[in-house]
């Protein structure tokens, strides 16, 4: 599906860069199999990608296996006193957490299945019984004597100086959120995220105990479209009143038929803001950080007018003092994009991962969190929101997916080559960071694609033509 003429994209960083213009991007970003393969090799290796949450591995020996880009990895909480003890977290995060490639050094078998589990004090490959400590170091090989020492060395030191399971390049656990960079060399975590971490801070601070737990279960929704369509959509504020007229608009209409005096159901409170007028979305604002991170909902948002939850304010005021509690809860951020592929909603405690499977296939995982120490009603609201908006059975989801799939189909048209991202484009925006703008500006989308071009080509060498 790559360009019909020209050199192709592999080993041609200039060709990749040429896909992203000031206010439009080439359709190959969404439909080319070759571009997708390069995203897996470069973009998802050079960026800091969310892997999972520390609460998914509460005890030593607990693991959570998942993917980063197309790479099978496993988060494991190290069993102390077994191996070198220190995790590969490179900062002040949780040092007992390791992120390892989920691949036996021997024949390449996946060590543990995807999802959560407990491995005890070591991993044991189910095929030939090779064992590894929970820091990835080799523990034992059955019938070791029969292996040639030189060739065994290669397995023991598979793809890194550390013998045993390959480790990812770098790990950072930030307030419970586990991120990794697959490549050993690259941008430091703090430089990559900068001020954007304030959204994660705010979500954690909404717990009176300052702690989140993954709770309720994950919604997994298959999309037949490119993963970046979902990322673009998170700060697309010109679609809700059009695409969601059918769902949220209908909810409002049905609610209006209810007898006067009927208390407004939680579901209506969650649905109704989707069909707010353009002026509302313009006024709510967008903040643009660096490296493709940004959020909608600076001054106001669709999450700003929910009913108070009994007992919550008192717990927050007791934990933080009234002034700080007010500041924490006054934050109305809507969708925060952490480039490349997650979106976080602080006020509603959800995190969505847009997992790339193929150029035209994405698995959307929508996770929910319990605010430790807060009333259960908040988790109930979070789960209802996730069910109404992010489930495969969600009418809002049906609205969006139809549009993504139509785009995935029609981008194959050779009638036009470019996807327009020009709304409120200003040449002076290049290079600006940590700034706010009109809520319908597509600046954040443009910034994502500028970051895309940089991190795609950062580790690419120009080959001979």
């Amino acid at each position, binding site marked *: 599906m790559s360009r019909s003429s020209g050199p192709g994209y592999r080993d041609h960083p200039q060709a990749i860069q040429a896909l992203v213009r000031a206010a439009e991007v080439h359709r190959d970003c969404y439909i080319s199999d070759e571009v997708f393969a390069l995203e897996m090799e470069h973009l998802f290796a050079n960026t800091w990608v969310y892997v999972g949450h520390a609460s998914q591995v509460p005890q030593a020996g607990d693991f959570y296996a998942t993917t980063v880009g197309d790479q099978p990895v496993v988060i494991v909480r190290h069993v102390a006193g077994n191996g070198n003890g220190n995790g590969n977290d490179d900062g002040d995060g949780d040092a007992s957490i390791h992120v390892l490639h989920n691949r036996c050094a021997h024949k390449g078998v996946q060590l543990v299945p995807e999802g959560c589990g407990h491995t005890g004090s070591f991993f044991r490959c189910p095929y030939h019984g090779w064992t590894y400590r929970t820091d990835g170091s080799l523990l034992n090989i059955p019938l070791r004597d029969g292996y040639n020492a030189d060739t065994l060395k290669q397995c023991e030191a598979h793809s890194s100086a550390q013998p045993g399971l390959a480790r990812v390049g770098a790990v950072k656990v930030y307030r419970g959120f586990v991120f990794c960079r697959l490549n050993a060399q690259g941008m430091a975590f703090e430089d990559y995220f900068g001020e954007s971490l304030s959204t994660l801070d705010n979500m954690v601070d909404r717990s009176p105990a300052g702690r989140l737990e993954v709770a309720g279960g994950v919604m997994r*929704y298959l999309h037949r479209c490119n993963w970046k369509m979902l990322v673009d959509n998170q700060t697309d504020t010109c679609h809700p009143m059009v695409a969601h007229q059918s769902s949220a608009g209908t909810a409002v209409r049905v609610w209006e038929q209810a007898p006067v005096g009927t208390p407004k159901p939680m579901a209506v409170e969650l649905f109704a803001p989707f069909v707010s007028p353009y002026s509302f979305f313009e006024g709510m604002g967008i903040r643009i950080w660096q490296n493709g991170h940004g959020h909608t909902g600076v001054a106001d948002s669709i999450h700003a007018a929910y009913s108070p939850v009994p007992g919550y304010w008192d717990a927050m005021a007791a934990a933080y003092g009234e002034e700080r509690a007010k500041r924490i809860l006054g934050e109305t951020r809507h969708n925060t994009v952490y480039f490349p592929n997650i979106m976080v909603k602080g006020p509603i405690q959800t995190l969505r991962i847009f997992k790339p499977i193929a150029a035209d296939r994405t698995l959307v995982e929508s996770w929910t969190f319990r605010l430790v120490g807060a009333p259960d009603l908040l988790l109930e609201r979070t789960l209802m929101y996730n*069910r109404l908006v992010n489930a495969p059975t969600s009418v809002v989801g049906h609205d969006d997916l139809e549009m993504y799939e139509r785009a995935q189909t029609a981008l194959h048209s050779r009638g036009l080559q470019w996807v327009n991202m020009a709304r409120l484009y200003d040449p002076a925006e290049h290079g600006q960071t940590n700034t706010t703008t009109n809520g319908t500006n597509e600046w954040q989308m443009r910034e994502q694609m500028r970051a895309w071009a940089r991190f795609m080509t950062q580790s690419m060498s120009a080959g001979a033509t």
Partner: protein
Amino acid sequence: MSDATPKQPAAAPPSQQALIDFVVAEARLLDEGRFDDWLRLFTEDGRYWMPLTPGQTDARLQASLMFEDTMLLKVRIERLKGARTFSQQPASRCHHLLQTPTVESRDDAAGLFTTRTAFHFVETRRDEQTLYAGWATHTLKIVDQALRMQMKRVDLVNCDAAFGNMQLFM
């Protein structure tokens, strides 16, 4: 078509066959796209529940695919008819294949009955059709001398799998 509307049972407690007939007729309304008639089969406080995990007992603090009261069901039904409901252009169609329902419990005094029905369900749109398999549990209640659904619970055998769009009712 009109004979698919469940018959009003007499004042006497419904026979086993009447309960079975209700479940079969209910599925038929869905297959015929008679969603307004289908919605009228629920009690006022009726719920449609589709759990996300096998054997799930909590619909409040555990995620479900659907846990809808009659207002939310009405929103879905109205949406399916909407001129700007693009995910239904063209519309989806569905097909239920039911095993004979079994009566799991009956309380004639309270007018409360539970049935369990194994099913295969196909949802189709354009050139694609998707097969789902599971069990429907109906909690039926006598209201004004007629059987009504207080709960329709749909447990898919693969309820915790990743799914594409499910736009109709199972």
